[in-house]
């Protein structure tokens, strides 16, 4: 099987726009949560979220004009804007900008989203009811479709290879990276730009997840305390937004052009819970099988894993995943560090698996596990080090990143140092 390495990273997160800015704030234990600023959240059960900091582009803020011309911004939903911005970062970081048509045909894009242009759909529906169907913009459909990040990125850079997308709720980002790596392994492409993006912090998005009883509601007075995975006082996830994009590349291809290599993609596992539309199976069986498949594909055993980036959303389901990891690790559990970076970023839904894969790769690069913030009073006892409230500097050669989504869809990725 062809080997796949990571040669480019791009991040737009509630902590910051930019990879190093997001990573340093994550390691410092900062929270991206605050009262919602994009619209007036009064009347919603949850009034806070982890929003991407908007600004003039300085100090890690996101300035849309830095990533897309104003006249083009009007034609796309925010999730596409975030995805294109993160993709631009990743492509520039990788230095891979092929100009000959053959190399372009060997470069593909596979970027997904959990929900897509929800805000555009909601706004357009309301506007159509008020003003009639003739007022629906010709850019409504191509501005809301989930695969249009892949389309936009392909058009922008002339990437003529496989053009694909994933929609698997909160597992989207992980599935996109895993599927893209397989396209390279199979020889369908030499380079893939892959990941996920989400921008569902809008009234209907918050109201919808509130109705599912999925969101935190008790922390309006101090939203930075709301996302608290594994803590006894957790009460639901905090919605996040943004994008994470990686450039995956066939190993020899990367070496031949002298690319900077962050780490190696080693394995990918998937499973279905076959249990419930929103709740994970109580026994954690789907999570366990997903992780086992990823390890098998990587040719590794649980004892090889140093760091686990958990799905850990700050809901009651946290302990189900924790139990599944404990059982998988067995005696090795006490030697593993596992953290939920959602404690700082909130839950980016379809982008979560992608930004967490990037954090996992950076954990290998810098030999440090990011913290689980707000873990003051653990809900259960565990032998696993959950990195409560402080980063953990340690040997990290191999990492496992989990993502689980509505519908009972599970994905696990394994990355390692290049051997």
């Amino acid at each position, binding site marked *: 099987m062809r080997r796949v390495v990571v040669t480019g990273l791009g991040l737009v997160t509630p902590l910051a726009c930019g990879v190093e800015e997001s990573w340093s704030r994550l390691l410092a234990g900062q929270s991206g949560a605050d009262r919602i600023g994009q619209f007036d959240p009064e009347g919603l059960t949850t009034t806070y979220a982890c929003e991407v900091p908007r600004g003039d582009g300085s100090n890690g803020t996101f300035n849309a004009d830095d990533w897309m011309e104003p006249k083009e911004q009007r034609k796309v939903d925010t999730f596409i804007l975030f995805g294109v911005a993160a993709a631009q970062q990743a492509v520039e970081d990788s230095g891979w900008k092929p100009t000959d048509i053959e190399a372009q045909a060997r470069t593909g894009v596979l970027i997904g989203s959990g929900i897509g242009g929800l805000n555009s759909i909601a706004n357009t529906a309301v506007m159509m009811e008020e003003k009639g169907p003739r*007022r629906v913009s010709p*850019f409504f459909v191509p501005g809301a479709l989930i695969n249009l990040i892949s389309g936009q990125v392909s058009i922008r850079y002339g990437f003529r290879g496989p053009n694909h997308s994933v929609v698997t709720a909160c597992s989207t980002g992980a599935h996109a990276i895993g599927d893209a790596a397989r396209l390279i392994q199979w020889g369908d492409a030499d380079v893939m730009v892959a990941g996920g993006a989400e921008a569902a912090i809008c009234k209907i998005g918050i109201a919808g997840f509130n109705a599912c009883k999925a969101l935190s509601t008790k922390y309006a007075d101090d939203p930075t305390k709301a996302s608290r995975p594994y803590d006894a006082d957790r009460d639901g996830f905090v919605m996040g937004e943004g994008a994470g994009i990686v450039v995956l590349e066939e190993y020899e291809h990367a070496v031949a052009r002298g690319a900077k290599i962050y780490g190696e993609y080693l394995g990918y596992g998937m499973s279905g819970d076959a249990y419930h539309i929103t709740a994970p199976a109580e026994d954690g069986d789907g999570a366990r099988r997903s992780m086992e498949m990823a390890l098998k594909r990587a040719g590794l055993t649980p004892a090889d894993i140093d760091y686990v980036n958990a799905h850990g959303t700050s809901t009651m389901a946290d302990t189900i995943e924790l139990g599944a990891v404990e059982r998988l690790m067995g005696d090795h559990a006490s030697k593993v560090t596992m953290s939920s970076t959602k404690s700082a970023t909130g839950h980016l839904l379809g982008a979560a698996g992608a930004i967490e894969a990037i954090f996992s790769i950076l954990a290998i690069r810098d030999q440090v596990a990011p913290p689980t913030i707000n873990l003051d009073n653990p809900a259960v006892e565990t032998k696993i080090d959950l990195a409560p409230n402080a980063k953990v500097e340690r040997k990290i050669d191999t990492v496992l990143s989990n993502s689980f989504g509505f519908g009972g869809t599970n994905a696990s990725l394994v990355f390692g140092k290049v051997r």
Partner: protein
Amino acid sequence: MSDVAERVKKIVVEHLGVEEDKVTENASFIDDLGADSLDTVELVMAFEEEFGIEIPDDAAENIQTFGDAVKFITEAA
């Protein structure tokens, strides 16, 4: 320049992101001002909204330049 022409020009500049002095009488939206077919649909919608008129599809197809738009709207409004 007439009031209609000023308002049409403002919409064209806004939607297509072009310099004002490029929007001349004979400037074609597609050939000279960088619009694609979807942009022209949106432009016509913006004209309808701004001037409170309805531009039927067959008439819209004939609006290819800034001058065409001003002429049609002046007659319809």
